[in-house]
């Protein structure tokens, strides 16, 4: 895969994370999460065989599907085409998203030089961006779906970074188990939230 294509992929990856950070539209968020995992799959091909990278894609899509089904069965999901006006909160989060993307872009070269020399700069930018987006999402919202998306984004960023450092089948299996469990817990939180609202 050419460098240009990979750069576009990394940009798309950060864009999906930014959408999840900025917009509060559940259908769009789930769609962005699924697309995020597709970008991760394509980017991780740099350090993993297609078969192993495929596991991450399947797990990611399963996670997205699990959350989507939970939301749609709760009757809470709205159409992807519903458009609301940008709120001041969204503008603020958009600015933060830009800032976080800029930080990851600027910090990646120094980080590569001093700590992770074997990881490519592009991979580092993408993983650092995901980690920062995830952390910001986790730190600023208490709503179950967004918290889980934040956690999954944070973990995806770390998995992307760690994939360039070490490979172990056991570790891959454990990461898979953690991602699926996280999606289950996310669904559990959403169901409890819906139940308590309806009471």
């Amino acid at each position: 895969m050419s460098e240009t294509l990979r750069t576009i992929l990394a940009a798309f990856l950060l864009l999906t994370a930014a959408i999840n950070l900025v917009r509060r539209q559940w259908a769009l968020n789930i769609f962005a999460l699924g697309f995020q995992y597709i970008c991760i799959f394509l980017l991780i091909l740099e350090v993993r065989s297609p078969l192993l990278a495929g596991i991450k894609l399947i797990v990611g899509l399963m996670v997205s599907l699990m959350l989507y089904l939970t939301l749609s069965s709760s009757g809470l999901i709205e159409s992807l085409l519903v458009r609301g006006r940008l709120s001041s909160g969204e503008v603020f989060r958009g600015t933060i998203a830009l800032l976080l993307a800029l930080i990851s872009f600027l910090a990646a070269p120094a980080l590569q030089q001093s700590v992770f020399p074997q990881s490519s700069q592009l991979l580092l930018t993408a993983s650092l961006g995901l980690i920062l987006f995830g952390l910001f999402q986790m730190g600023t919202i208490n709503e179950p779906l967004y918290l889980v998306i934040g956690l999954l984004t944070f973990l995806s960023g770390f998995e992307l970074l760690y994939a360039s450092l070490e490979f172990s089948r056991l570790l891959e299996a454990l990461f898979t188990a953690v991602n699926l469990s996280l999606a289950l817990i996310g669904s559990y939180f959403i169901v409890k939230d819906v139940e308590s609202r309806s009471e």
Partner: protein
Amino acid sequence: MNLMTTPAVWIFLPVLLSLLLVLVHRLHKLSIWIACVGSLLLAVAAFVFPQDLEFTLFGQQFLFDDTFLILNRALSLTGSQLKTIATLYLFSFLWNIAGIRFSVSRWFPTISLAITALWVSTLAVEPFLYAALIVELIVLISIILLTPRGEQAGSGVMRYLVSQTIALPFILLSGWMVTGIETAPSASTLILRGAVLILIGFSLWLAIFPLHTWLPMLAEKSHPWVFSFVFLMQQSSLWLFLLKFLDQFAWLRNLNGLFPAMQWAGVLTLLAGGVLASLQNKVSRILAYLVLIETGYSLLAIGLISQGGGEALALSFLPRALAYWQWAYTLSSIQQFAPEIDGSFPSLRGLFNRLPFHSMSLILSLLSLLGLPALGLFPARRMLWTSGAGLTFHYTPLLGLAVAGMALFILRLMHTLLTADPESPSPSLSAPGEESFWQIFVLSVFTLLSLLMGILPHIFLNPFLGLLEPFIHLLPPN
């Protein structure tokens, strides 16, 4: 695949059992009894199993392997770790056997057994840094228990999840970063980075001050029975895991300033726990501060490892568990008797008149955790107070303040329990004689056990020194 291995017995078998319990979880009593019997058998087996893993039964010789290979990695449980395993399954048994009384989640037996097996696997997995992901799995599973029934997940449980998840990269990255570090010079930047990553990871996992803010929020919303079990298992296993780090990484234990830093972190955590406990007006939140105080003491003990801190840590395992058990049992039982008691001080006024044994049990479990002479935790506390104060004068006033803070809370609680509100005597608090003989018996037995451990520590507590046997580099045998 060789199934005659220790990991197959103490990890896979209980995991299989918990999967079986998933099928029968609707039959609550049956699943509790299966979990109880399973935990007890596994605890007893680990306790009596020979350290060389070889024994003869009915004329046939059995030799167990200590390693199970899985996905090119190993799970290894040596003979020296069997006492630890026995202790963890004993805790699982103690919480399951009494859990039948309380309205905790019907998943409690299933999940408690799975959590215990997973904690054992964190001590067994090689490379041991992979345990970070198993800890994350345990956190995710335990959330099902910690979320109250019929309510949405609160901020406490979410912060708990976030805090534990953030710890994961720190531990895993430290492992990668320090590969081959033994050959690096002692002042290497890598060593410092590795140590910082490990310490941040453990600080997040163990909610060391000031990263503890989610603990009281979680304690307030969760059932005390569940909270005490989850955090007892977490504390007990993570301290052993930290000892494993220190034992395996010579560069870490030889790092200048590491142990004094741990001592300070321990003393400050202890101080925060004591001071915050003294200001509390809700007993439901106090378990969080008790956990924080115990974290402080355990961290101080590891910081004082060369001054006998290791022994103090090992001696505190059982008394701490019994004190948590007694506190959580009593509180859960009170909530069962009188659902109108919400844990606030005003709702507990004059409770002694109605439930005298429960009231005394609350106070005694707190006194045991305080380290009162003749009670279970006194031998461990005495060692730490003496070693800490003997090392530097700075610790003495801080330790004193922490103890005074907790003592103040106990005095306030005693005053509340003994003093009835003269203006509005609650009719629900004026009917004595509700405690059954069986409840009085259980509470008395645990008080007696605490007394016996305090008076005869060489009989009841010395066997727990065996928990330190696997750490031969950190604590070389004499």
